[in-house]
């Protein structure tokens, strides 16, 4: 029953956050207008147009990105049994960056759908390389996965740096801004893709939650519970890579959420349960909604990169939690 109550709280919090995020921003719109825009949208009304055309898709994208990255982090931390694993450790985001930089230097395109496409191709490339390398190493798959991921990540970064070294300063600043992430590219036409991938991923996590948890006890223990360890791990890796590739392509590099949110949730609830999994997704989503609100309302006429805020807010909160937990636990 308490788990049900927890989930209801999360749903309620999400609704409140959505309404808050729609009302706050460069211009504050009062809650009554927000409500009206949602119930009976009138496109001649400027404020309602801002809400429905700009803020709503943006907030939905932020929520989806938060959910998705938190889930991807949780998957990777589970299948590699490595508390430091997150989507960025495995070279997926550096692959995306390389894709973007290659596009810049070859064609000079600095915005639009081509950019997302290039990022997506880059991360797919990184993912394929990683899977091909680790497929041949079945025995100590976990170690080779992490090591290969880190090596690939450095390789892609080196290529990116080399290309940046030769390109002009304007391109560099555009690329840096892209790397730090933003939800400003959200619109109704492209929102279906992250929505589809994130819901697919959550469904898979819920479906395979037992076998995923069994992996936590080690490959050998999982095998004795009837789990096909190598297959499950590759499948889950594929899923989280796809998720990261889609999100990075649309939002740019939003770091730290995948690493941190699963750990924060883990402080409070055992992740073996359905409730724990959903709590992780909700926490990621809620966190991202408010990060986006901060990003677009802190400075006048200017937007802060989302990645800066996630890393800053997240790491301080995380350190605080570590310190406080150490004090309250009697065994320390």
């Amino acid at each position, binding site marked *: 029953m308490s788990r049900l109550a927890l989930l209801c709280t999360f749903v309620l919090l999400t609704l409140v956050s959505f309404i808050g995020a729609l009302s706050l921003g460069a211009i504050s719109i009062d809650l009554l207008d927000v409500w009206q825009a949602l119930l009976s949208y009138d496109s001649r009304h400027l404020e309602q147009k801002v809400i429905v055309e700009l803020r709503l898709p943006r907030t939905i994208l932020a929520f989806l990105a938060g959910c998705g990255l938190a889930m991807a982090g949780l998957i990777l931390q589970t299948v590699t049994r490595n508390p430091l694993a997150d989507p960025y450790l495995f070279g997926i985001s550096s692959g995306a960056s390389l894709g973007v930089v290659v596009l810049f230097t070859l064609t000079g395109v600095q915005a639009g759908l081509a950019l997302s496409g290039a990022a997506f191709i880059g991360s797919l490339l990184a993912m394929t390389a990683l899977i091909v390398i680790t497929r041949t190493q079945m025995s100590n798959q976990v170690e080779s996965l992490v090591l290969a991921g880190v090596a690939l990540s450095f390789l892609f970064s080196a290529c990116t740096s080399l290309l940046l070294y030769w390109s002009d300063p304007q391109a560099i600043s555009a690329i840096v801004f892209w790397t730090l992430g933003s939800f400003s590219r959200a619109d109704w036409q492209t929102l279906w893709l992250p929505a589809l991938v994130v819901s697919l991923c959550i469904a898979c996590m819920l479906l395979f939650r037992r076998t995923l*948890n069994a992996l936590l006890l080690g490959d050998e223990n999982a095998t004795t519970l009837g789990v096909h360890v190598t297959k499950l791990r590759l499948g889950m890796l594929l899923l989280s890579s796809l998720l990261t590739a889609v999100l990075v392509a649309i939002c740019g590099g939003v770091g730290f959420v995948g690493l941190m949110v699963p750990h924060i949730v883990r402080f409070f609830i055992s992740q073996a349960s359905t409730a724990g999994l959903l709590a992780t997704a909700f926490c990621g989503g809620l966190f991202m909604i408010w990060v986006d609100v901060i990003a677009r309302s802190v400075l006048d006429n200017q937007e802060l990169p989302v990645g800066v805020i996630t890393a800053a807010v997240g790491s301080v909160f995380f350190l605080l939690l570590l310190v406080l937990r150490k004090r309250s636990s009697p065994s320390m």
Partner: protein
Amino acid sequence: MIQASSPPPMLSVKQLGLKVNQSTILNDISFDIKTGQFIGLLGPNGAGKSSLLRCIYRYTKPSYGFIQLLDKSIDDYSRQAYAQQVAVVLQEVPEQFNLAVFDVVAMGLTPHKPLFSSMDQDDKNYVYTALEKVGLTHKNTQMFCSLSGGEKQRVMIARAMVQRPKLLIMDEPTSHLDVKYQIQIMELAKSLGVSVLASFHDLNLACAISDSLLVLHQGSLKAQGKPQSVLTSHLLSDVFGVCADVSLVQSASDIHNVVPHIRYHYGYVK
């Protein structure tokens, strides 16, 4: 008159061998485990105990020979079906995770549950019964990583109980534990009433608990049979390289039975 055929052995291992990179790990091993028997597997470090057990719980594929579970080759079982028959308790469990004791025990349900289903009341009862049997009901909401070594192994035994196997395999489940917990874990395993194949490092404990012993030496089966006939000072110096006396003492569990008791001289064969 129709002769009643004897029931098939729980597990039957025939001419099993394992080679890894041209070196022989296991060589021509054959033995049977009867239903309800408690078999102790002995041997010095590197004799191939863990490799043999891994072949039986299908983590390693043997190079030749075959293994049958209840008259059917173990390769003919699906992963899930095999896990419903055979549960395994290992020596060590990774600690880098944060699951409640209840959740770890509930993992024993994995081979019995289809993907979509959630836990019903029966499943919960299995988990609570197992927790009660290992005496950890009061810790069911605690985090697994906060438990002591003995408690962790009791949780793993409870998980194996929830799995409801016909054969329980244990690979030195008591190596790091205090004497009391070594005895406790083995008694718990024995109390399940299923066939057990357990490797031991404490020879006296193995003699006191097991119905029959298997002794591995350099990948081959050196001896098998009742403890009192297998464990002699001759075998101890041959296989384990220690000088020791073996005397027969009355079994603690069965007064009509005697078990060998080893007294080491703390010298070794050079």
